[in-house]
């Protein structure tokens, strides 16, 4: 239980045993922890990127693991990382060419130095949140969505992404961090929209209701995954890993 909740109960003088707790669904936002979503991992919690491991909220495939499950995954990942480092050494990514490095550097420099202040990262983030709430099955729509709405959400998120090119940090590192946080969240939005659109059934009732396909279907007992290819989210499907089965990366 969170410190804030405890504080509220003690302030009120009445705990959950004496008074009903008011609740509201808030989890289906752009977080993966309480559903099956997250980065694709193998048994050792290694992602599909060599040398990168995931545990807890960011590790996909298994829903409802909460804190205790996250602790276990953290331990599995830490042991696998140790094993990896002792056998392979520290992984160094040399996949980027000198030209790509140069481009990335000038992109960061551009955001860092730019004085443009027509929009702030916070304003664009609010626009992003509103788009996801209204058109991608957010709280404003009681977690219900259809394909037409998702297409609108996709267009709007891409427009906000375009606008984010014009943000400027005016030489402040913290503002630069906020710009990159926003751009990464916009990326997550695009992935979320693509995944919601690809699963043509309603798998997690109350977390997300696909109004075009309101029923759960056994045809969809598989993972909807994606890869980033040339800047676009490409959907791929993976078969379920059943109890007792083990998984190693194949694709």
């Amino acid at each position, binding site marked *: 239980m*969170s*410190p*804030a909740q*405890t*504080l*509220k109960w*003690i*302030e009120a003088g009445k705990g959950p045993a004496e008074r009903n707790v008011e609740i509201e669904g808030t989890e289906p936002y752009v977080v993966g922890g309480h559903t099956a979503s997250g980065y694709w991992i193998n048994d050792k919690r290694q992602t599909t990127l060599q040398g990168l491991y995931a545990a807890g909220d960011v590790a996909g495939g298994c829903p409802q693991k909460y804190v*205790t499950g996250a*602790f276990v995954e953290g331990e599995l990942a830490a042991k696998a990382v140790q094993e990896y480092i002792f056998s392979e050494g520290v992984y160094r990514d040399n996949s980027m060419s000198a030209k790509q490095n140069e481009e990335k550097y000038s992109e960061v420099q551009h955001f860092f130095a730019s004085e443009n202040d027509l929009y702030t990262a916070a304003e664009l983030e609010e626009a992003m949140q509103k788009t996801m709430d209204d058109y991608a099955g957010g709280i404003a729509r009681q977690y219900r969505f259809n394909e037409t709405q998702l297409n609108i959400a996709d267009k709007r998120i891409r427009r906000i992404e375009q606008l984010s090119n014009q943000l400027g940090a005016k030489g402040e590192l*913290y503002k630069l*961090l906020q710009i990159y946080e926003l751009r990464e969240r916009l990326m997550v939005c695009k992935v979320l929209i693509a995944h919601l659109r690809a699963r043509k059934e309603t798998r997690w009732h109350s977390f997300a209701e696909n109004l075009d396909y309101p029923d759960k279907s056994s045809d969809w007992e598989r993972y909807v995954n994606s890869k980033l290819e040339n800047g676009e989210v490409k959907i791929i499907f993976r078969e379920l890993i059943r109890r007792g089965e083990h998984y190693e990366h194949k694709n």
Partner: protein
Amino acid sequence: MSIKIDEGSCIGCGRCSDICPGNLLVVDNNLARIREPQACWGCTACVKECPANAIRSYLGADMGGSGSLLYVKDHEDTLEWIIQKADGTTESIIIYKANSNTY
């Protein structure tokens, strides 16, 4: 959810700034401050870390808070969480460190 930093007690050591998982605390002129109070999710890491006992956690009015402040005292084997209510009374919750992460 947010925190209140007592300027009189803050020694500007920067430990809260190092521990904050949201990167929200900064030290200016030897005083810690939270740069975006609305972004704080109330994890209380800074409250536990502060050696000067200068940080209090509280619940915003919009979250149904009514002015209580939460802080912690470290007694070697236990953590004593103290809730100081608006009417001046206090309540304590004792957590045994060795058992705090067993489920």
